[in-house]
């Protein structure tokens, strides 16, 4: 069972995504949701662009977005299973949830790649 099932792998993504999102997303919200709009910090466009071009920043953002998306996908899958009691549609749900996370991850890489 353990070797055949993907559940341990999906749970690892869920777990890592949950920890990272809970620790880091509040910081991002504080910085870009409050500090910058309210004028507590004044990073220039050029400054942020340089920061974003750095490979470490890109790897960090890809990891944060990908894992958070897989966390959401896993949680949403079980919410649909148990909340709406539609476990019999599990194949469709899996494709939609994890497929959505994969699409989102590819989009993240694409957008970061496109930054000049």
């Amino acid at each position, binding site marked *: *069972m*353990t*070797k055949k*099932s993907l*559940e*341990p*792998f999906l*749970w*690892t993504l869920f*777990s890592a995504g949950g920890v990272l999102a809970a620790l880091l997303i509040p910081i991002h919200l504080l910085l870009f949701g409050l500090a910058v709009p309210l004028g507590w910090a004044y990073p220039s466009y050029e400054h942020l662009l340089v920061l974003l071009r750095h490979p470490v920043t890109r790897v960090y953002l890809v990891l944060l977005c990908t894992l958070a998306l897989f966390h959401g996908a896993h949680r949403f899958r*079980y919410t649909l299973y*148990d909340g709406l*009691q539609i476990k019999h549609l599990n194949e469709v749900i899996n494709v939609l949830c994890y497929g959505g996370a994969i699409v989102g991850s590819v989009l993240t890489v694409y957008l970061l790649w496109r930054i000049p």
Partner: protein
Amino acid sequence: MSDTITLHVARYRPEVETEPTFQEYQTPCRKDWVVLDALNYIKDKVDGTLSYRWSCRMGICGSCGMTVNGEPKLTCATFLTDYAPGPVRVEPLRNFPIVRDLVIEMSDFMRKLVQVKPWIIRADEKPLSEGEYLQTPEELDEYKQFSMCINCMLCYAACPVYGLEPHFIGPAAIALAQRYNLDSRDQGARERMDLLSDHTGIWGCTFVGECTKACPKSVDPAAAIQRYKLKAALSWFKSFLLPRGAS
């Protein structure tokens, strides 16, 4: 404060009823009375036909678990005055079939409990002459909180996953398996693994956390399950990296 309180008690007498109904009783509401005292008062003085389980009255035997105002509680540890002026609704534990009144059918839990082998398993027993299996206080702390479980099944009544998926092994049985897995004297972790790492085992849990909230002995079954998930996930990765001989 009024010195009486109203109890709405769930009744189910399968020989005369097809589904449970409620019956209203007035009982004294003394400061030192718990819900179980009120039930005993009803049984002794008002209505001898009321059926429920109880034994020790002190949170050890785990037999008086019921649903009090919608929450799974040990009725011997739930004070009436906390629900004053009432009424207090007393129902059988949720997620279990009802045998009669407040008595639930618990054989599903008993069967699952045995399946996880909650006892010390040794590959090789050392002879008595070599003495005890010694344990440091740190080794004891590893599993001690999980050993506090009294099998009261409140966590099963609280668990929405168990309510939807009766094959789920459930919080207490997994916590008790962990109680032995984490015991330095035990060597049975591998024997328990197939059952625990099945989709009806730890992977059935969606980490709602209600089991931990409901536990009257402050055991943390949700933590036991999450810890075991991490262990099972690591061994899953190992089985890919070292296909032969990995545990």
